[in-house]
C-alpha cells in the first residue's frame, strides 16, 4: 500500500511538471524527460521529508537531483540544462507559502485584536521565511552542478563515458 501511494505520487508529480513545461512552451522532444525529472526530484523531496528532513532540506536535495540529471539530459536531448531543470522544480516552488504570506500581510492591515495579531504575525512571518528559504534551496540545488564544476556552460562538463555510450546506442 505504501508503495502504491508512492507510485501514485510519482505520476502526479510528473504531470505537475509537464503542465508547467507546456505553459513555458518547451520543445516537444524534452517533455518526457521533464516528466521523469520532475517526478524523481519531487519523490526525493517527499522521501526526505518523511525521514524528518523538513521541507527546506527536502527541496534542496530534490532540486540538486534535478540539477545533476538535467546536465545529462542536456547532453542527449540537446537543449540547455535549465530548460529541463526549471519546469521540473517549479512544482516544488513554495507558491502556497508565498501567497499565504501575502494574504497574511493584507489581513495585518485590518483592525485585528491584540492576541489574534500576534498569531497572525507569527503565521505570516513563518510562511514568508519558508518561501524564501525553500526558494534559496531550490536555486542553489539547481545550479549546484555548475557551481561545483566551475564551468560556464553544460557543454564543457564531460558526462561520464559509460552513460554517454548508453545514450548513443
Amino acid at each position, binding site marked *: 500500500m505504501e508503495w502504491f501511494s508512492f507510485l501514485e505520487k510519482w505520476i502526479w508529480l510528473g*504531470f505537475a511538471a509537464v503542465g508547467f513545461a507546456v505553459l513555458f*512552451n518547451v*520543445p516537444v522532444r524534452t517533455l518526457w524527460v521533464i516528466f521523469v525529472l520532475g517526478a524523481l526530484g519531487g519523490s526525493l523531496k517527499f522521501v526526505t521529508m518523511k525521514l524528518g528532513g523538513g521541507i527546506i532540506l527536502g527541496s534542496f536535495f530534490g532540486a540538486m537531483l534535478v540539477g545533476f540529471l538535467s546536465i545529462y539530459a542536456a547532453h542527449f536531448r540537446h537543449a540547455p540544462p535549465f530548460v529541463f531543470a526549471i519546469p521540473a522544480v517549479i512544482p516544488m*516552488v513554495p507558491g502556497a507559502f508565498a501567497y499565504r504570506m501575502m494574504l497574511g500581510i493584507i489581513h495585518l492591515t485590518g483592525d485585528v485584536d491584540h492576541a489574534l495579531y500576534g498569531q497572525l504575525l507569527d503565521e505570516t512571518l513563518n510562511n514568508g521565511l519558508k518561501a524564501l528559504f525553500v526558494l534559496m534551496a531550490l536555486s542553489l540545488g539547481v545550479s549546484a552542478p555548475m557551481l561545483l564544476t566551475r564551468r560556464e556552460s553544460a557543454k564543457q562538463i564531460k558526462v561520464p563515458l559509460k552513460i554517454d555510450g548508453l545514450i548513443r546506442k
Partner: protein
Amino acid sequence: MENRNIKRIQELSKILLEVGSLLMASGANSSRIRITIMRIASAYGFSAELLITHRALMLTVFDEESDYFHSSLKRTSPHGANFKMVSGISRMSWRIVEEGWDYGKVWAEIDRLKSLPHYPRLIILATVALAGASFCRLFGGGPVEMLITYIATFCGLFIRQEAVKKGFNAYLCIFFAAFTSCLIAGSAVKFQLSVNPEHAFATSVLYLIPGIPLINSLSDLLEGNIMNGLVRGMNGLMIAFSIALGMLCTILIYNI
C-alpha cells in the same frame, strides 16, 4: 576598409541586442544572457560588454584592431516564458561558433525561431489544468476536489489568456485569473460540495505562481547580479500579491 568594418560591427550589435532581448523576454537568467552574447561576439572576433537590466539592454562592441567602439541600447519586450526560444538560441550560438555562420543565416534562424508556434491553446489549457489537479492530489485532495481544481484552473487560465490578448496590465491579468479560479473553487467551500474543499481552494491558483521570476531572482543573486535579482524578486512578489488580492476578493464575497 574602415567603413566595411564599421558596418560589420553595427550589424553584429543589432544581432546581439536582438538575441539578448529575446532571451530576456523568454525567461533566461542574467548570466545566461551574458554568456550567450559573449559567445556570439567572440565567434565573430569582437569583444563585447553588456549592461543587463530588466527592461533594457546596453551593449558596447569593441574592435581592438581599428580601436572602434559601437554602443547601442534596446528595450526588451514584455516578458512571457518561451523555452523553445531559449533552447533554439542556445543551439544557434553553438552553431555560430562551430560552423561560422554569416549574418544572413543568423537573421534567418532568429526569424525562424520567432515564428515557431506555441502549443495549441486547448492543449495548454488541458495540461495546465491537469497540473493543477495533480497539485490538488499531492496536497491530499480526492477525486471531487481534483475535478473542481481542474475546472477552476482551466477557466482561470482561459481568462488570463483573454485578458493578456486584450492588453490589460500584466498584474491585473493575474488578478483576474486568480479571482476566477478562486470564485469557482470557493463555491465548493461555500456550499460544501465535497469532504475537503479547502484543498481545491488552496491549489486552484498554483498555476499562477511566479516560478520563473523567483527562481531566476535567486540564481541572479547567487551569481552576484544583485540588481537584477532584486528587480526580478520584486516582480515575483508583485505577482504573489496579485494572486493574494484575487483570493481575498473571493474570500470577502463568499465570506469564508
